[in-house]
């Protein structure tokens, strides 16, 4: 890798041993991908994936402390993934004990570290930092040092920013030195598609199921999806963006997709069209039967597969304001149809603190509350990641949550029916 004089001086330790190690990390990371150079980060803000003060992650907090002690911090402020705890979310005595006294004992300590490292503000905890209500929305062409797979794939695909699927810690280290290695999704060539996915379904495919199927098929490659604009339109409006947010999160968690192109919709596909597809690209055709096959193959790991659900999470990644309103309408209508007043399964809708703040001021908030639904800024994944939840029958419309926990995936319609007393 060819470094500038300034970069080489940092690596040589002229600005201290700790900063030299940070630069060494970024250089070695780039060399693993034959990166020829480092390029400046151009986004206004960074986004970090590590939001949780898990006791077991002590090595991470030790490392952050080394950075703080050496005064090695970034000038770039950042948002971070959602908090793992929220008293609003139903939990029994034992769960609360395990969460607060055993698992997340480092939460306060770590949040203090985050503030010192450059956290935007106390509301900057969400995986959907790019929502207007949060304000960390990069521009097309911006170079990022983000982590959080669902945010990275959204920034690349929907916003046209440029970011590799960086890991936690690498995210902040890039920001500290101000540079990221030039490889992969930062390059024009790395953004070309090696898969053509043809969507031949007879109805609008479920975002999180379609994303799962594509993620599992293409893994870390870039897919060019043809036929989806028929169902979600050719304009990046609220509805299409929310769809792509959920679709992308599933491609990234069920596989390792960092960028997708949707023909006729996403910015690079609109500009460059099928020029983005490399010669010899493989093809994957998705029809109704293929989606059904994928869904049927998800393992059911509940102790009693026919158990009555005890909790439902909707919003991984976090919901948009429009999605919160839409769920409110659908829950209200379905309860009415089924002759019920409140949801029959404890249900949590999750969204960013700033989004919830706006939602609370709308006419929808009291309706949702009256239906017995809880809203929260929590990370459902962090809530579920413990052995107590493994025994708990939790349902979700998130394919990301299904992938990492024992939560069982259902389509939005199935979830709606299950929580409003209809037939599953």
């Amino acid at each position: 890798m060819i470094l500038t004089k300034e970069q080489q001086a940092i690596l040589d330790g002229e600005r201290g041993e700790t900063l030299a190690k940070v630069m060494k990390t970024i250089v070695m990371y780039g060399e693993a991908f034959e990166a020829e150079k480092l390029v400046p980060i151009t986004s206004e803000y960074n986004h970090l994936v590590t939001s949780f003060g898990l006791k077991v992650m002590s090595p991470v907090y030790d490392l952050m402390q080394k950075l703080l002690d050496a005064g090695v911090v970034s000038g770039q402020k950042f948002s971070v993934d959602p908090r793992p705890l929220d008293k609003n979310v139903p939990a029994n005595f034992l769960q609360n004990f395990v969460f607060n006294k055993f698992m997340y004992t480092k939460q306060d300590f770590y949040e203090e570290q985050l503030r010192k490292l450059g956290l935007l503000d106390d509301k900057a905890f969400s995986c959907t930092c790019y929502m207007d209500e949060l304000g960390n929305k990069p521009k097309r062409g911006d170079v990022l040092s983000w982590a959080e797979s669902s945010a990275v794939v959204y920034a690349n695909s929907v916003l046209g920013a440029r970011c590799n699927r960086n890991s936690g810690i690498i995210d902040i280290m890039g920001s500290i030195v101000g540079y990221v290695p030039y490889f992969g999704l930062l390059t024009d060539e790395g953004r070309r598609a090696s898969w053509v996915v043809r969507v031949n379904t007879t109805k609008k495919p479920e975002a999180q199921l379609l994303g799962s199927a594509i993620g599992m098929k293409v893994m870390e490659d870039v897919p060019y999806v043809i036929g989806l604009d028929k169902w979600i339109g050719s304009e990046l409006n609220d509805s299409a963006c929310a769809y792509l947010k959920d679709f992308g999160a599933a491609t990234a968690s069920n596989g390792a997709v960092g960028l997708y192109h949707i023909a006729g919709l996403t910015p690079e596909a609109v500009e460059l069209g099928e020029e983005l597809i490399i010669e010899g690209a493989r093809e994957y055709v998705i029809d109704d039967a293929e989606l059904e096959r994928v869904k049927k193959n998800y393992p059911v790991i509940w102790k009693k597969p026919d158990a009555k659900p005890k909790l439902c999470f909707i919003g991984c990644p976090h919901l948009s304001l429009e999605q919160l309103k839409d769920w409110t309408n659908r829950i209200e209508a379905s309860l009415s149809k089924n002759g019920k007043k409140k949801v029959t399964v404890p249900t949590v809708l999750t969204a960013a603190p700033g989004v919830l703040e706006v939602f609370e001021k709308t006419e929808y908030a009291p309706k949702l509350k009256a239906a017995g639904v809880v809203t929260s800024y929590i990370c459902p994944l962090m809530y579920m990641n413990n052995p107590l939840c493994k025994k708990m029958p939790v349902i979700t419309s998130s394919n990301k949550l299904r992938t990492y926990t024992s939560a069982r995936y259902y389509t939005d319609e199935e979830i709606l029916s299950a929580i409003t007393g209809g037939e599953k």
Partner: protein
Amino acid sequence: MKQFKGRVITPGEVTAEAVVTTQGFNTLASLQMALQFGDKEVKCGDQNNAELHGKSLLGKALCLPQTIGSTTGGLVLYCACAMEKNPACMLFSGHIDSLAAAGAVLADVWVDGVTMPVIDSLGDEFLNYVKDGMKITVSADGTVSVE
């Protein structure tokens, strides 16, 4: 015995028993529960990986195509190394992915006293040939012997 030559991401020499996955290794799903709740054998917790689920990863030669999933993957791997709960080595048939590379580099630069050789580009034939329980020897130049 068969030998394969790969590219050294982080150097080292080790001999260990193989555990093999032919699908992507989801680092968070595989390791988090084991690390969080002190599983001494570090059994793989990824329910979506039938080849590895429930198998011990500690001190094993983990043979894989790539890692997948959450971008916490690299820091989970870093923590596993810092806590000495890591595989003995990681051997990739293809090019290493960005999350695994981050974990390997973070462990190499920031963890003292732990060596986890990471070799990539060993080829599809490597992953077709190697099976659970085979003896793996990793040399400093990236040569991997399988017997």
